[in-house]
């Protein structure tokens, strides 16, 4: 008893001492990251340029790289709307002065481009470096990224054609970003500490306030918008998108007669016959279950001229020993016609 109490005490002391060093709780879990590993993965660049690699690239080099690696999706001038939304366009000399893209509030912009939105040049550098080009992300060296970004800045008329962008002058270029004052964090949708406590936003105060009125809440229910006719069938036939049993059905939006059943993978009629006849309980098409797979049967008998007749007889009578000790039961419930169909089907590959 006393020995037992002692060991409890020792354990308790040990537990207490480890608890004060949280890191030691999970002994043997994880290992130190090496400096080379951290360098390999820690490539993020922050708005204050923490993490920015040294390097430089000019507009000419950037144009060359852009045409080779970027233009197929983004267009030669970053203007393309074919694959992704455009990178360049919608900003003015005046926006560069004010730091607010006027088109965003005036409604003049047909479409927002990357440069009409982004406030921080670090974002563009970081993203090109980590994710571009589309099919070969992380293949660009820092100098390539500087060059491509220099070309884009030139396209957006933020820097001249002879410009060289580098880690030394990127903070100066930040001061010319057309929408650099275009962000606000004055909202209640940041799930952490508010701005006044070192975080972001107003501390979770919502921007709308509905009340849960229950009776006679308004004089009438006014419908402001309905689904346009052309959109009714734009997502395919809705009849196929709601389950075929239950309290409701999907509406047939094609105007055609309703399909009989949702199209399952169409099995061949003979496959259905094989399933119905119980063959598939023991034989797979391409695998042994209890008996051999149909593919094995086909392989064994394919060069035997009388295979069909012999197999029909075997399936009908049952047998044992050809494929192992598990017997095949007789299948006298099947008609000769069905038996022949099944055997022919198996010998031709069971498709």
């Amino acid at each position: 008893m006393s020995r037992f109490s002692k060991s409890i005490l020792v354990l308790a002391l040990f537990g207490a001492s480890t608890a004060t060093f949280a890191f030691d709780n999970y002994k043997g879990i994880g290992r130190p990251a090496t400096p080379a590993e951290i360098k390999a993965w820690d490539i993020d660049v922050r708005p204050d340029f923490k993490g920015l690699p040294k390097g430089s690239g000019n507009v000419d080099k950037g144009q060359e790289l852009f045409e080779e690696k970027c233009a197929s999706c983004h267009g030669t001038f970053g203007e393309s709307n074919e694959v992704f939304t455009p990178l360049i366009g919608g900003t003015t000399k005046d926006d560069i002065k004010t730091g607010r893209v006027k088109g965003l509030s005036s409604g003049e912009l047909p479409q927002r481009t990357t440069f009409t939105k982004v406030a921080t040049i670090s974002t563009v550098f970081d993203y090109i470096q980590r994710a571009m080009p589309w099919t070969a992300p992380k293949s660009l060296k820092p100098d390539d990224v500087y060059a491509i970004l220099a070309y884009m800045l030139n396209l957006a008329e933020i820097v001249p054609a002879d410009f060289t962008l580098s880690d030394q002058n990127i903070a100066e270029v930040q001061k010319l970003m057309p929408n650099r004052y275009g962000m606000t964090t004055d909202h209640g949708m940041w799930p952490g500490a508010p701005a006044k406590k070192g975080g972001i936003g107003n501390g979770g105060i919502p921007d709308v306030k509905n009340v849960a009125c229950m009776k006679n809440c308004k004089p009438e229910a006014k419908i402001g918008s309905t689904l346009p006719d052309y959109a009714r069938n734009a997502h395919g036939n809705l009849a196929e998108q709601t389950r075929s049993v239950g309290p409701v059905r999907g509406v047939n939006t094609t105007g055609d007669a309703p399909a009989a059943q949702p199209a399952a993978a169409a099995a061949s009629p003979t496959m259905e016959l094989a399933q119905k006849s119980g063959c598939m309980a023991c034989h797979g098409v391409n695998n042994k279950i209890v008996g051999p797979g149909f593919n094995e049967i086909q392989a064994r008998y394919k060069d035997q001229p009388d295979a069909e007749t012999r197999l029909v007889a075997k399936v009908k009578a049952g047998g044992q020993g050809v494929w192992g000790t598990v017997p095949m039961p007789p299948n006298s419930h099947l008609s000769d016609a069905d038996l022949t169909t099944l055997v022919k089907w198996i010998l031709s590959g069971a498709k």
Partner: protein
Amino acid sequence: MVDSVNKPGRLRPAPENFLSEVQIEAVGAGRRDFLRKSFLAASAAMAAPLAARASEGDPNILQNPEWTTTLGQPVAVRPYGLPSKYEAGVIRRESPGLTRVGAASVSFCPLQNLFGIITPSGLHFERHHQGWHDIDPSKHRLMINGSDPEFVKRPKVYTMDDIMRLPPVSRIHFIECGANTGLEWGNVAVPTVQYTHGMLSCSEFTGVPLKALLDDCGVDYKKARFILAEGADGSSMTRTIPMEMVESGEVIVAYGQNGEMLRPENGYPLRLVVPGVQGVSWVKWLRRIEVGDKPYATKDEAVHYIDLMPSGLHRQYTSVQECKSVITTPSGGQQLLDKGFYNVSGIAWSGRGKITRVDVSFDGGINWQTARIEGPVQNKALTRFNINWVWDGKPALLQSRAIDETGYVQPTYGQLRAVRGTKSIYHNNAIQSWKVAESGEVSNVQVL
């Protein structure tokens, strides 16, 4: 109205609908042999199930079907089970024209067909930024480091083996894309709830609280008040998350989803779970956590996932998914079978906590009734609600309105647009309306 003759699974009421007008006249005239004639006709033509049905009963009962009279399939024909072939229409779908590249796109969850609160893993919505991979878990690594070396005493690397040795938690949470319902900011654009609300799913996630790993690395919580989460895919997606959420213990480094490993499309083998926050922050294929003292303004928080306001300013770092609900049965693109009783059913959720109440209106928001909440009610999880309804065949406007534990009431379109305009794309949590026409067809409308 639906023609009751074509209603599957139902007996036709006799005699009016069963008998032709001539036969009814015959009954009226006192002739009794009409029934015998009907039976003769029925037995002569096996392909006349309606006759047999009405005369004796339902052929589905009277004639034992194939599945009652033949041998069924053995075990393990499908070593990994699949839904019935009759459920083939219950699948994820894209919205045509929404995106032009499948690797940077969305597939929507078929909410109109789901029950309860858990999304089957194969139907979980997808959003990829640069395509998905099926990552070899033995080669996957999670690194934890600091923006400044002084923020982390011991930057570490963990294997999946390491992470799966640690004490896990399992929690049910919804995940909703910030752009869910974004197509509908200006006007009705899409026909069904799959496309209006289907960037939403809910799973049980299993994993390790991120705090345990940060503790293990010796993070300086006084200085490092933000984390950057980074994925291992080509896009190496990154998002800033507040340290307060990590410290609360609710942010999980998850490998499990509904009892099995995450699906590759959902981040196999490791993803971040950030309850209540929009899906883009739940970084998939999670490879690195950096702790830092400032937010990062990554592409998906400085070019995308920023909310344009009428002033021309963009709201940045909007992350919380505010309280929202939608009726899923009946919903747009569906057809009521008949007048009479229905269980109207839907889901509610809030990024700020638990759902406390859901009200339903059948007249477009003039009058409301409180729905039944079908438990369990969990923090930042989908919550199922139901309410009885007897449809009288007249036009109706169905709406649901959720309230969460902060007292926040889901807003109307009018209220949201008054503050945010119609061009913000993200965070549309307006009350959804479904119009039921006299024909029984349900369609998507907006009530102001």
